[in-house]
């Protein structure tokens, strides 16, 4: 599944809702659904706020299901990240004046099984997240 949205804040809820609908076939719990929605919301919001910083651009959301695992990829062609390691530290933000709290990557890490961030300054950012659905029920 691939979704392309314009970098407008009103598209954020649409993006996470589409991903949530896409993964219902895996029969996720309400908690798993909330986890994935939050992670998608964080990544998409970052692309809109930081990547494009109010300018217009496109955010791509690619979603795949392999067995019980969902993979979500969020891509922008915005400003990119200078220091990825630093950006991923909890509470680190480059935009305190916009009331960002530096929790986005921390939430993506907490709510998904894995998180990879690729970025190049001036080119853009790609975030890849994976989560196995249904782990709890099987126990």
């Amino acid at each position, binding site marked *: 599944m691939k979704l392309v949205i314009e970098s407008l*804040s*009103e598209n*954020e*809820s649409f993006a*996470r809702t589409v991903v949530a609908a896409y993964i219902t076939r895996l029969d996720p719990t*309400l*908690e798993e659904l*909330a986890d994935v*929605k*939050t992670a998608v*919301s*964080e990544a998409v*919001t970052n692309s*809109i*706020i930081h990547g494009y910083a109010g300018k217009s651009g496109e955010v791509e959301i690619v979603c795949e299901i392999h067995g019980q695992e969902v993979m979500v990829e969020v891509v922008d062609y915005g400003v990119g990240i200078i220091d990825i390691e630093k950006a991923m530290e909890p509470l680190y933000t480059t935009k305190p004046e*916009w*009331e*960002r*709290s530096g*929790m*986005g990557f*921390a*939430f993506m890490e*907490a709510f998904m099984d894995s998180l990879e961030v690729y970025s190049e300054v001036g080119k853009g950012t790609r975030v890849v997240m994976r989560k196995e659905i249904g782990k709890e029920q099987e126990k």
Partner: protein
Amino acid sequence: MQTKMNAAHYELHQNCLVIYVTDDLDHHAVTQLREYSDRLIDAGNIKHIIFDFTEVGFMDSSGIGLIMGRYKKVMFLGGRAAVTNVGEVVNRIFSLSGLYQIIERYDTVPEALEGLQKSRIKQ
């Protein structure tokens, strides 16, 4: 006093502003909420602030930023902030972010109104 706006409606109880959030609290909702909340706070007479989550089924880090930002404003005037009717989904976000270290949680708005008027010293 009661006012309805995008993403929230507002009530003033003496010196306490209650913001009933009526939408998913994401970046989009926050941009709508922030300006009007601040206009009410800046108009004066507001000491404490309560965010009610009865109708909120989803929140991300943008909501944390909104609450912290408003808390900082009332804090300078000796005020406090509280959240009420927090569901499980939102509660996990608050817990993870460490928000409860500075913002009080009550079950209902009347309980928060009472709690905020009392001394802040807890045993």
